[in-house]
């Protein structure tokens, strides 16, 4: 006796959160059943393995049918086939678009192309996330990217509107899209200590201050592309390190202000010129795409690592950066105050976030 056909359809679509998670995680029906058995559900409910098998199949089928709709979440809201309470719809969408930290770190900043998709095998092996789940997450990134890439208006709003994600998740996707579009390198070994959250934080600051949208909210791609003009202008900052007088003056202003307040004052004093050169050179190089991509590598190399090797406490880093940015306003010979603030304001935030072990 074999079950040739076995279905259950409720007027209100039944969603089992646990099974949904297993499905999202890419487990096959049999693996899912095995995992559920291990969870002790049989003992709790007195059900048999066959019941569990049938139940799991049913849910998988439902999810499979829902998947098409989840690709365009507004469709899920308007469709008539599955009657799902709004709170459950939200849960389905949110979980479907949720991603694994381990996975996103592998893909962040990479081109969302077929080439990358081919590498998913390796990512799957490396992270222990099933290939199926990797594919889902990758396709989600790509889908969101495609939809909002060319759109005008706020990136986060666009994502929220077209994918009905929670604010948090929409911000994460904004970061992913932003990174994918600018192809920031995040995979280098020295960047491994950074979490997705660190990058997302930086992305948000950069979107707010360094993109076209930061100056004009009516342009296409406003939040996705960096403001080319701004990057071009950053060359002007070079004078801060190129002009020896300016550099010395800058240093003395900072040292005066921080004397006695910094635990690592002497290290700071000794390293000031190196650090300042590093930060300003990063800015000046941003005209080249290649250097844009290496932004984070450079920041870590030029600033985070030197400070870390001298064991700067975070608070000292904060005091230093604040003073470093602010002192520029007192440099009479320097005419690009606004540009400096736009650059340094964001960079300061990023550096503080990036500065940890």
């Amino acid at each position: 006796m074999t079950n040739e056909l076995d279905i259950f359809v409720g007027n209100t679509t039944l969603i089992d959160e646990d099974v949904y998670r297993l499905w999202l995680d890419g487990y096959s029906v049999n693996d899912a059943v095995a995992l559920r058995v291990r969870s002790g559900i049989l003992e709790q409910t007195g059900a048999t393995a066959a019941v569990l098998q049938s139940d799991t199949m049913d849910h998988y089928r439902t999810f499979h049918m829902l998947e098409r709709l989840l690709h365009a979440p507004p469709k899920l809201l308007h469709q008539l086939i599955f009657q799902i309470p709004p709170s459950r719809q939200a849960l389905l969408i949110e979980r479907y678009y949720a991603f694994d930290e381990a996975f996103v770190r592998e893909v962040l900043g990479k081109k969302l192309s077929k080439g990358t998709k081919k590498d998913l095998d390796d990512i799957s092996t490396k992270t222990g996330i099933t290939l199926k789940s990797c594919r889902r997450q990758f396709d989600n990134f790509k889908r969101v990217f495609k939809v909002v890439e060319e759109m005008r208006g706020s990136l986060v709003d666009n994502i929220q509107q077209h994918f009905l994600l929670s604010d948090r998740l929409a911000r994460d996707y904004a970061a992913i899209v932003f990174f994918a579009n600018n192809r920031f390198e995040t995979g280098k070994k020295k960047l491994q200590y950074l979490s997705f959250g660190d990058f997302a934080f930086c992305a948000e600051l950069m979107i707010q201050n360094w993109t076209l949208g930061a100056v004009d909210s009516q342009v296409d791609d406003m939040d996705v592309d960096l403001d080319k003009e701004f990057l071009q202008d950053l060359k002007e900052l070079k004078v801060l390190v190129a002009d020896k007088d300016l550099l010395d003056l800058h240093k003395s202003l900072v040292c005066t202000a921080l004397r006695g307040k910094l635990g690592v004052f002497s290290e700071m004093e000794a390293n000031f010129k190196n650090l300042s050169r590093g930060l300003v050179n990063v800015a000046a190089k941003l005209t080249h795409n290649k250097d844009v991509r290496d932004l984070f590598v450079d920041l870590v190399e030029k600033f985070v690592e030197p400070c870390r090797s001298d064991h700067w406490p975070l608070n000292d880093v904060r005091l230093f950066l604040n003073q470093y940015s602010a002192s520029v306003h007192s440099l009479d010979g320097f005419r690009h105050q606004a540009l400096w603030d736009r650059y340094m304001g964001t960079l300061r935030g990023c550096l503080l976030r990036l500065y940890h072990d």
Partner: protein
Amino acid sequence: MPGKLKVKIVAGRHLPVMDRASDLTDAFVEVKFGNTTFKTDVYLKSLNPQWNSEWFKFEVDDEDLQDEPLQITVLDHDTYSANDAIGKVYIDIDPLLYSEAATVISGWFPIYDTIHGIRGEINVVVKVDLFNDLNRFRQSSCGVKFFCTTSIPKCYRAVIIHGFVEELVVNEDPEYQWIDRIRTPRASNEARQRLISLMSGELQRKIGLKVLEMRGNAVVGYLQCFDLEGESGLVVRAIGTACTLDKLSSPAAFLPACNSPSKDMKESPLVHPPSHGCRSTHNSPIHTATGSRLTQNFSVSVPTLIYTGMGSGSAGKEGGPFKALLRQQTQSALEQREFPFFTLTAFPPGFLVHVGGVVSARSVKLLDRIHNPDEPETRDAWWAEIRQEIKSHAKALGCHAVVGYSESTSICEEVCILSASGTAAVLNPRFLQDGTVESCLEQRLEENLPAGCGFCHIPYDELNMPFPAHLTYCYNCRKQKVPDVLFTTIDLPIDATVIGKGCLIQARLCRLKKKAQAEANATAISNLLPFMEYEVHTQLMNKLKLKGMNALFGLRIQITVGENMLMGLASATGVYLAALPLPGGIQIAGKTPNDGSYEQHVSHMQKKINDTIAKNKELYEINPPEISEEIIGSPIPEPRQRSRLLRSQSESSDEVTELDLSHGKKDAFVLEIDDTDAMEDVHSLLTDVPPPSGFYSCNTEIMPGINNWTSEIQMFTSVRVIRLSSLNLTNQALNKNFNDLCENLLKSLYFKLRSMIPCCLCHVNFTVSLPEDELIQVTVTAVAITFDKNQALQTTKTQVEKSLQRASTDNEELLQFPLELCSDSLPSHPFPPAKEHLESASSNSGIPAAQRATSVDYSSFADRCSSWIELIKLKAQTIRRGSIKTTVTVEKASPMNEGNFRNRSAPPCANSTVGVVKMTPLSFIPGAKITKYLGIINMFFIRETTSLREEGGVSGFLHAFVAEVFAMVRAHVAALGGNAVVSYIMKQCVFMENPNKNQAQCLINVSGDAVVFVHESELEVVSSQPPTANCQSSCPGGDVTT
């Protein structure tokens, strides 16, 4: 030309891509009604076209309005080749034809294609302007309301219940026309859908005409089915109960509808004697010509069984004056009717006086012998024959009416089993219009009768029972006789006193049959039927006893015929009626008494059974009150009775009493396990697993003993098909497979719905079909309702207390009873003239009260089967089934299977979020009040695929289809302005597959009543506002959870 139909096509959305090159679609719409077609403009290059068409106007007869569906086809314009159809929407405009229902149909309807399923949605607005037509000879019956609900709908009052209406139409099945060889599957499916839609429109119109003729204005309990006869045609038939309903103006008049529907009724309806005898002639399907035709047809009738729970009996008019009176009156009202049948299963209080038992009839027919397959006469004659049978069974039980009546068919190739069943009943003559002096007397009697037990009292005459029955005095009022077990097809009357909770009881059975042709096949089936009936009944009885219960409600027995087997599935809800005696236990007896180990085995089994009974009693909270001396203190004048007994009995009466006593001590239902068959049975008895804790299930509307429903409901359909391994199938293996199938299905349901605990599965409806040789398909539709455990418990308690009180009061009153009545009705006592069953009757009156309570009454059941059954008994194991009577046709039918049709599709509210539409097989929505009935939903869909694997195999295919059907029902309801479907039923789900060709096809037929409901909580807030006013707004708002 009394109607103008206006249609506007507003927009489409989510259309499929029809042009690969552009990834877009150039859509336009054809709107067709009758022979007139309009087209919209082509909306170029869009998946969300905005047609915003003008109003298309159709000027049509109201006859057409009733028959024809509005047909909307969405197409993709193609300059060079033929336009491609995207899909269709059929809209039944019937709900617009009566004044109180919907005034406009407006909303998003899924665009449905029989090959691709739902492909986007279309927004349509439909209106009808009706002109009054006073033509007496009109062919239309606009304005007659139809309800699937098998009780008086909530916002109506029944002025008169007229009675049975039926109709049947036949057509050639498009799938079997020659043209089908050359047309596409899509064209063929659409032809079928259209035809069935048309036929059900016609059927409804014709039934409406009959209702108008009877001067009614509504059909309640409307049940429409279709029979796919194959070559011989496609039959659409319907039955219903004609009523005159009054809309209740003040909705505040009703109680919240948590319980049974009839609670709302302020007044009981009248049984209306047909004012013109001739009016009823339309009921007669038998034309003079049929006689001869019939004889040409091959048909086999099988002996009929009448189950009366226990009792059973003859019609005798010589009962006490009380009964005679009753009978005369009811008779005058009902006998003039050809078929005094009612499809209702719940009644206004006082309407139902006594219940006799289940009556049923079956008949085996050969479809290829119909001489004029395109005409309905032959089928009309078949059904008339069966109904006649039912009527005479009811008479034999001393009843003049049949309630809870339903009809069904099972077809396999050219063999067709027709079944009908119902519950024989006596209806209250007080409600007769011509009631005079007698009815006054009646009324007084009536008032004295305790409400909770009256319906259990036997309607037949004890002196003249053709079958032995075990009668006792009612445990509630002590005044009247009751059978020891009661089987019915109706819902539990609301005023019935029940102890504990009820539970779903099923009997399942398979019988192998040789493959055969024509007559041989029909004969084989007919020969098997009585055995199946008998065994199904045995199982039911055993399981009922095992549960410690004494009555079955909502009994549905379905017999399904396949190529090489017959399946029987009976479902019912068991309860413990306080009025009936405690059920006896089950005793196992071995046939080889001298074998020690065997004895041991038997006693082991016995112990297991006893344990199970005790456990069940605890589980279902069956704690009948100890009957105290005081209450029992028999008010019945014993000596007198006894003497009467002696007088009226034959000389054997003394023996009888003694026999009874001995049986009484045995107190058991004896199962002889003398062969493996019987062992199997005992095993299967014990393998039925009770639902996990927190779950209850029943197949009636409400679960006895649970009152506090929350508004969380979940309606579902589950389908399973198993393939039997074809090797050496035996009856036992088959039974086990089938049993496992049903049990596993139930287990799965409990598991899936575990988040709703504490919860009750209500209206559990199983349907079995045998699509192919080795396939068994079971379809279940039910609703899970969460209840509040604490409150439910409380209520039960008070109920029991109340019943106790009532019982004692009744006893006091009893003494004031007119003496002659009392003696006349009671003493007619037991002893049936059928002498071979002497043992069965017992006279309670002579036995000391205490003893009676414990033993005698529940005693006995030796077998009381009539001689015919005894033949069977030799083969099967044993005992007491109801009584059986040999007659001509066959037996009880399962009510379920019916087919209906009609297509519809439906849409949800136009705005951004989709409004929630609840669906339930019940006639009410817990925690809410129905404020308006919008019309009947009756939809028929066909889905076919040639890429079965790609769609996820059979399960994926059917899962999607069932979900689509739900969606289309909801959309249609929402477009009518409703927010729920009540009395929803999936009448047919015919699934066929051909995995080798990667193909499958499925037909689904569903129906229900579209309604507007308002949550009780909301009601309180807006109570001053008439609910009808806020119905439009409330529907999307009345949202519902889960």
